[in-house]
């Protein structure tokens, strides 16, 4: 998806992202729908990436992304520029996800389920650590993206909010309406499963 320079206007083309965002926000607040479309074009991938990690499937991620931008349009007048626009949009996406999460009766069960029966393999843990130590590469990031999608909903949500988005565990707990202990349990589960998945990739040869 590309930005049409003719529509974004020469002023924003040459500006660094924060300044360009500020110009587009100012225009959008005045009601310029084209400016808001440019905001969408610039931030859709970031917002959709977050929504995809939270929702776990592309259909729900698309719906969540759309909701996020509709809410953003309605709230744009309240954006004061204290945070980068991308982070502000991310916050809207997270809040929207929280609203959906809290109305889903299964969600609390997902958080309670910490996967006590998940397999744990010490050898796998060693291999996974080696895999990550030697990787540090784009491939590892791509792997991680795919693995996050395979996590159970509770572990995935907590991992994405805490490790990817950087929310403190206490804030994740407040967002999801559960105790911090539950968040810690889900984090532990997410790491354990990810470690097993990294080992499964077979990209690190493990010879016991």
């Amino acid at each position: 998806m590309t930005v049409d320079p003719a529509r974004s206007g020469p002023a924003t083309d040459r500006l660094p992202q924060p300044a360009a965002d500020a110009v587009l926000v100012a225009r959008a607040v005045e009601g310029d729908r084209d400016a808001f479309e440019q905001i969408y074009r610039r931030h859709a991938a970031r917002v959709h990436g977050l929504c995809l990690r939270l929702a776990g499937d592309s259909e729900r991620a698309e719906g969540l992304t759309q909701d996020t931008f509709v809410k953003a349009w309605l709230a744009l007048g309240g954006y004061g520029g204290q945070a980068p626009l991308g982070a502000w949009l991310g916050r809207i996406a997270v809040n929207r996800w929280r609203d959906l999460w809290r109305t889903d009766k299964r969600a609390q069960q997902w958080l309670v389920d910490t996967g006590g029966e998940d397999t744990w393999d010490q050898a796998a843990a060693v291999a996974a650590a080696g895999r990550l130590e030697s990787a540090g590469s784009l491939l590892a990031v791509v792997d991680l993206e795919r693995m996050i999608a395979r996590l159970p909903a509770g572990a995935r949500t907590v991992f994405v909010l805490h490790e990817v988005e950087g929310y403190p565990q206490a804030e994740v707990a407040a967002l999801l309406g559960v105790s911090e202990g539950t968040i810690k349990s889900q984090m532990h589960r997410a790491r354990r499963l990810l470690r097993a998945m990294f080992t499964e990739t077979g990209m690190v040869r493990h010879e016991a």
Partner: protein
Amino acid sequence: MKHDLPRDPSAHDDAFVGRLSALAAALREDGVEPARDLWPDIERALDTTGATGRRATRYKAARTWTGAALAATVLLAIGLGVADLRPGPDARHAIPVARDTTTLQPGVSAGSATARQGLHAVDQALNELQAALRQSPNDPDLSRLVMLIHHSRGRLLRLQAEGGVRDAHGGRS
């Protein structure tokens, strides 16, 4: 690559967690493009949620032109009413009187002044309506109003022509 099982598993655990955190944080700014362009759906949602913005500007413009158009229509109705009443069934007699009046005091008679005011208001309204139509080309109400005003303006011009004042205004038809 050969790994010895660690004497202290937590050492590897810490290494793994640290690396995992770094990779996860790197994902934060890593976008994932949607499989399709979501903007058309978002724009439709903005329209249906009554969101503010350009659409609101259009509504504001619409309110403006609606007010002007209504004012023009009222004026036009008054003007047409006067004109329709004045010639009446004896139009053949009334018209020469009007022509005489115009000849004596061009553009000053009560009938021509009313018609001129009506035409002026109609022209203003048409200008606003056409500007609004450029912004909202698919607005059915706007299109209907433009057609109505055009039609009414044509009637007014025909009546003016009968009253001998058409040349004073020229303009569109």
